[in-house]
């Protein structure tokens, strides 16, 4: 029981962060708050992958100076770190494009609330 809690408590905290991001994306009505929620959501996924790559009593994945034999159990797993570098940069690009779209929407419709926006779109369509 204690082993299970020590081995899994970090995943529970990451699930809480994911729920905060999901709440911001779904329930808030302002467009900028939705983008902030999406950013929190992406950060929680990155933390999940990086946390699952650790090992007890192991160090960063950079080879120590002057060591000849490489012991695999003393370096943490480098593969999820590499994949998450790509994920961070994709998150930055997505946020940049999202903010550019928000600026264009504000120039055309003069509002950023979702309910007013949907009403304006329905009125334009009729």
């Amino acid at each position: 029981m204690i082993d299970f809690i020590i081995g899994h408590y970090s995943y529970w905290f990451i699930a809480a962060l994911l729920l905060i991001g999901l709440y911001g994306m779904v329930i808030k009505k302002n467009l900028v708050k939705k983008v902030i929620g999406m950013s929190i959501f992406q950060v929680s996924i990155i933390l999940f992958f990086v946390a699952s790559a650790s090992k007890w009593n192991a160090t960063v994945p950079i080879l120590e100076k002057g060591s000849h034999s490489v012991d695999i159990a003393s370096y943490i797993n480098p593969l999820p770190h590499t994949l998450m570098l790509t994920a961070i940069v994709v998150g930055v690009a997505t946020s940049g494009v999202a903010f550019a779209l928000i600026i264009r929407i504000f120039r055309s419709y003069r509002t950023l609330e979702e309910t007013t926006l949907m009403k304006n779109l329905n009125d334009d369509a009729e």
Partner: protein
Amino acid sequence: MKINEDNPITTLVSSVVAPFIMLFGLYIVFHGHYSPGGGFQGGTMLAASIIIIRLALGSDIGQLQFPSRLGTPLGSLGVLIYFSTGLTAMFFGGRFLDYSFLPVAHTPSHQRSLGILFVEIGVGLAVMAILVAIYDDLLGEESDD
């Protein structure tokens, strides 16, 4: 954007600190082999050193340091450096992005190490230019033509 003349602390500190941030960003790019770092991290630091001048000193002095029309061409140049490293390897007999065929060293492991360095320089340049270009486009600043 007007220069905030009654805020001398921000003006002085950012104009003193920005060259050191740029130097540290170059150090991170080039020491990606031996310490945590590499192309993406160093490119972000270089972009930070340019954006801090635009935030603190206004857009006139910012355009003097790094004009806005240089943003997207430098980004394309970074991707071109990456691509041409791969095509050079194909030109000398290997497969695409197989660095052990580049004519820069003698043993395959040293050739691959230098190939990694060229590729990281390309990535750092592209990331820096595109981040500054996104900042300029979102704020509507243009260089004087």
